[in-house]
């Protein structure tokens, strides 16, 4: 099968959605001629024109509201927020408007919009351009939160997000943009709310999100050499969360490590650990659940400090050894 980078996969999903449905359009800061801060929308302006690939002023609240208003009246906007950090400037529109309109209005309206945004650290962009805020949005009924970890998932989940009738926060990871993987050419959506077992194993379950998935897979490969069979699961959608798949694996292996980049306290890993602890898998646990999350600190600039702030492959290997020893 054809190999695409993660960024190319996102772009292909956007291109296919634009070609397939005239209600779909893109808006965001510098997504036109510039091609987006990370080059994701490169070439789409030429192909679809400035009405459907729409550069906006730097007005995160207004452009988020703009996507909402367009969605409520029959369009299917895909909004790019240049860095996930900048969503803070649009929180009111997203959390108090987009997430609540349908419910507040008794089901008489819908808000089919996607907000794509690059998240995460590792680029030396420091504290205000490296946030992983997905848990904030996963806490809000009315929103869906998707975080693909591979090229194929990026394409399939984005197509599904654009076809979804709800506001979807689509979290892309900057370090994944250049990673490569096989991607089907056909526009086949991957259903939201379905986790994927990325590697099967019987000894320990590693539940990882976004960029932590490739790190967990690399760690699993090293651990296999020591005879430890790691099962790596990517929830892929954080709201709704496919707890069933996670619980089934925890029950099978009896050992669980949850790995995520966001600050550990109250991150998505807390929810995942709690879901497993609340489930019947609890009786099958052979060791305490381990959460491996970001340190309790803003993301620093210095390369060594930055790497130390979030889980790395070595940390995952160590955490797995820890639960295996318990």
């Amino acid at each position, binding site marked *: 099968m054809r190999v695409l980078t993660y960024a190319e996969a996102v772009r292909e999903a956007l291109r296919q959605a634009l070609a397939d449905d005239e209600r779909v359009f893109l808006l965001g800061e510098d997504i036109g001629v510039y091609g987006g801060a990370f080059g994701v929308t490169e070439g789409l302006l030429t192909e679809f024109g400035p009405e459907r690939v729409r550069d906006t*002023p730097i007005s995160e609240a207004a452009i988020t*509201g703009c996507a909402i208003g367009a969605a*409520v*009246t029959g*369009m299917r906007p895909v909004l790019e927020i240049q860095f996930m950090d900048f969503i803070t400037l649009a929180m009111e529109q997203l959390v108090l408007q987009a997430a609540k309109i349908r419910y*507040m209005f*008794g089901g008489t309206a819908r808000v089919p919009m996607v907000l794509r945004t690059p998240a995460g650290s590792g680029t030396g962009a420091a504290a205000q351009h490296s946030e992983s805020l997905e848990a904030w949005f996963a806490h809000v009924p009315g929103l869906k939160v998707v975080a693909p970890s591979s090229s194929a998932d990026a394409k399939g989940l984005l197509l599904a997000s654009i076809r979804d009738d709800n506001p979807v926060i689509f979290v892309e990871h900057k370090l994944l943009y250049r990673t490569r993987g096989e991607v089907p050419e056909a526009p086949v959506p991957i259903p939201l709310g379905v986790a994927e077992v990325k590697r099967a194993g019987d000894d320990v379950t590693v539940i990882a999100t976004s960029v932590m998935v490739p790190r967990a897979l690399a760690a699993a490969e090293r651990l296999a050499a020591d005879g430890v069979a790691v099962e790596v699961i990517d929830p892929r959608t954080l709201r709704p969360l496919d707890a069933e798949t996670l619980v089934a694996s925890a029950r099978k292996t009896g050992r669980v490590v949850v790995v995520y980049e966001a600050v550990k306290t109250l991150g998505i890993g807390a929810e995942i650990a709690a879901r497993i602890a609340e489930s019947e898998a609890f009786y099958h646990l052979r060791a305490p659940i381990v959460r491996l999350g970001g340190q309790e600190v803003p993301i620093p600039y210095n390369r060594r400090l930055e790497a130390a702030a979030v889980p790395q492959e070595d940390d995952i290997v160590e955490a797995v050894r820890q639960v295996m020893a318990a």
Partner: protein
Amino acid sequence: MRVASPDLEQLVGMLRTMLLIRAFEEKADELFALGRIHGTMHLSLGQEAVAVGVCAALRADDYILSTHRGHGHCLAKGADPRLMMAEFLGKETGYCRGRGGSMHIADVRGGNLGANGIVAGGLPIATGVGLSIQMRRTGQVCVAFFGDGAANEGAFHEALNLAAIWMLPVVFVCENNQYAMSMPVRRAMRVERVSDRATAYGMPGATVDGMDVVAVHEAATSAVGRARAGGGPTLLECVTYRYRGHSKSDRQRYRGRDEVEAWRARDPIARLRARLTADGALTEAEADALAAEASAAIEDALRFAEAQPEPDPATLLQDVYA
């Protein structure tokens, strides 16, 4: 009733709608006093001319975005008082199935995209409605109502700029009722008029007497016409006054009785009634009959609403997602 011209007929229609809003608000106030309302409300008594004058300039398929003080906008846009009252009482058959209440009444099919509990919250959304209209080429117009307080929110500035650069068919209607809760407008902004800010975004701005439905209607007709013709947005400021407090918790320490009485002397309903009776368009008896009709419609709405079922807690989680 002697209706001498279509204009007079339209004016009588506006009087009828203003009377309906007043009757609704007075009934809402009464129900609250009787302890029959769960939650607060924001009454638009005194501001009827703005909602009615603006909405009378719209087509049935045009959109409005309303505010927390939204009962008048909703009725002026053509909502059914029965379904509004049912929502106000939190009933399953209300406009929002009892999930929204006073602060979120929406009549989406009728073009009212909802009252909004967040000051300036509707303004960014209005730009998207305008963009959607522009992209779908339907010739509709979107009106975004907001208060003087909203003009100091960042969202106001971002939204007006966006609407201006894209020439969106949006009319921004500021109901300047003199106070953002307790903060007088003269202490909250240095410019004389909210509409002075239009210049900053390169759009026309106008200030009209919001106690005069004819003046509001004329200005709104001009702004709506420009928007529909592709001429872009307008900032229309209507200077008005709310007779009651901000919400039900307001003890109104920030203003005196004399001030309220001075504004009441300019009452928009009394003013239009006087004009129509002076013109001979209505007799005093006919005008009284219109008021009685409005009260009867609200009594009917209340009877309807009271008879409606409460939502079933088993349906609590419905419609969080589509």
